[in-house]
């Protein structure tokens, strides 16, 4: 069951081979055994998870099961869940218990899934290594000396280490896809607006999008079926007909036009990663896909533009954490302003403080045009590059991350090096496009390499189709880290 697909698990539950309570206890046991080593979870509540599993078994017995009923799913600790500690990886929310359920949490409860626990993450989702959490760094299941990627590193590590059959994350600049790549699992960031942001603690609102982690593209499709859909409580949620994201999984790839952006294969790409991606492209050729060389000339400016836009939005979103109404408050202060200054200096970690400072500066009087407006214009150029590309291809494919997982501590003292991890993933966020990462081999040190697939707006089913057909021919996504337990 630890390695089973969601469909196999659902079938086991339906045929009474296993109950949801047994299944949930199996994964809780796995978490208990491995979390000391990997630090993937911040909160686990065995009693409540088993209680939800018992309720799910009741639904299954009544014949009222939906595809995910009784299946345990781990959620990034950025999603507010009623009565669950919801920290966002931060000291400032280290005592915050969710008073309501996020839309995504509601959807999973409505589907009868079991909340398996809240996963560790970079503080406020700001990072590419899951090292900036107040709760300590997450370790990569393939090599515990390495990072799992970030910011949704706990969710990625949980799926990789088979501590959860599936998990959720959020992606503002690559925070689902990059950890999926570095941890050897599958992750999908849907089109902006497909999954409601209600109850998802905001980082950069024009970029944030929630999505699933799983072992296969088929599992991603089943999870997306649960979380996608209109929600009036998010003003950017898109009103459109519900889709079945599994509908095109089996479609043959003959004639598929694969856009290969030359800019993503140049300087900065590690040779081991390049080689694995090239092998994957050759595999797609064999499946009948046709390669088209495309250009994303402005994507080199995606990191600079992102580090204006995301911190600007973050500085505004995070102004709510002031120690007055909830969360952490500093102990000693002289007056109200001093209370704010000390609460925020003590309650936020170094990276979060840095991003708030960047955002405050670029939005301040006299600098707005030079930074924020300029970045928004570059954002348009980057989106236009994709519009042009998708006239000539159906999906853009390249590496997810320039390197395999790096050592813990290797980049923490150099923010710019850390930021450059997301050079291939950020453009899709700026444009609002759907994108996924799936395992496509191993590089230096036997660490996983991710293949990045970007589609046109609302083409999640197409991305999942390409990924699924690839996974029918390969077994990279079935590999699991050795040496755990």
């Amino acid at each position, binding site marked *: 069951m630890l390695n089973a697909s969601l469909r196999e698990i659902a079938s086991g539950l339906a045929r009474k081979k296993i109950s949801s309570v047994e299944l949930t206890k199996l994964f809780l046991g796995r978490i208990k055994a491995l979390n000391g080593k990997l630090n993937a979870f911040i909160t686990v509540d065995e009693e409540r998870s088993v209680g939800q599993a018992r309720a799910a078994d009741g639904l299954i017995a009544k014949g009222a099961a939906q595809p995910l009923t009784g299946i345990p799913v781990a959620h990034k600790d950025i999603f507010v869940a009623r009565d669950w500690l919801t920290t966002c990886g931060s000291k400032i929310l280290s005592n915050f218990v969710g008073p309501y359920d996020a839309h995504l949490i509601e959807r999973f409860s409505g589907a009868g899934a079991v909340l398996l626990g809240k996963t560790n993450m970079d503080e406020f989702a700001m990072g590419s290594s899951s090292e900036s959490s107040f709760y300590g760094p997450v370790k990569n299941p393939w090599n515990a000396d390495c990072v799992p990627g970030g910011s949704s590193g706990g969710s990625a590590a949980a799926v990789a280490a088979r501590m959860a059959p599936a998990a959720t994350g959020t992606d503002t600049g690559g925070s689902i896809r990059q950890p999926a790549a570095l941890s050897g699992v599958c992750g999908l960031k849907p089109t902006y607006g497909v999954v409601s942001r209600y109850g998802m603690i905001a980082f950069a609102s024009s970029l944030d999008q929630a999505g699933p982690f799983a072992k296969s593209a088929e599992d991603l499709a089943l999870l997306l079926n649960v979380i996608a859909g209109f929600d009036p409580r998010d003003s950017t949620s898109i009103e459109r007909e519900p889709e079945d994201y599994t509908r095109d999984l089996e479609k043959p790839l003959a004639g598929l036009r694969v856009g290969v952006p030359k800019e993503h294969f140049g300087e900065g790409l590690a040779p081991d990663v390049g080689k694995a991606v090239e092998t994957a492209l050759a595999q797609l050729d064999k499946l009948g896909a046709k390669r088209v060389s495309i250009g994303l000339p402005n994507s080199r400016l995606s990191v600079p533009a992102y580090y204006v836009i995301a911190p600007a939005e973050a*500085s505004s979103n995070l102004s709510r954490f002031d120690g007055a109404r909830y*969360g952490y408050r500093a102990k000693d202060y002289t007056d109200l302003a001093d209370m704010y200054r000390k609460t925020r*200096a003590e309650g936020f970690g170094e990276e979060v*403080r*840095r991003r708030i400072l960047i955002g405050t500066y670029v939005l301040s009087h006299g600098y707005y045009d030079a930074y924020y407006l300029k970045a928004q214009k570059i*954002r348009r*150029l980057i989106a236009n590059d994709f519009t042009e590309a998708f006239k000539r291809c159906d999906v853009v494919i390249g590496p997810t991350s320039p390197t395999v997982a790096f050592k813990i501590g290797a980049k923490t003292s150099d923010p710019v090096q850390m*930021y450059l991890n997301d050079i291939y993933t950020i453009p899709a966020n700026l444009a609002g496009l759907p994108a996924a990462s799936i395992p496509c081999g191993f590089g230096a040190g036997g660490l996983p390499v991710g293949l990045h697939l970007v589609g046109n707006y609302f083409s999640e089913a197409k991305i999942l189709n390409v990924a699924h057909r690839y996974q029918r021919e390969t077994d990279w996504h079935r590999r699991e880290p050795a040496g755990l337990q």
Partner: protein
Amino acid sequence: MPLTPEEVRAIAELARIGVSDAEVKTVQAKLNDIFELIGQMQQVDTEGVEPMSHAQGSALRLRADEVKEIDQRGLFLKLAPAPDMETGLYLVPKVLE
């Protein structure tokens, strides 16, 4: 143009984040590294390009001006209590004498 220590202090004050004298230099150095990266934006001519503030081109959806929220004050105060409260009110240091 690199940030000066005075500018770093001014930004920190705007952001209401305490930065000690001992920290200013380190904060300044790292911010300047990042602004060097951000400065690459100037390499491209964006004259006449329409700024893109959002992934969705269209205007935001409007809704009827109706009260939908129910009163959950008691619940919120119970589950996510403020650091300092009295009879259900948030307490902060005195602002007016």
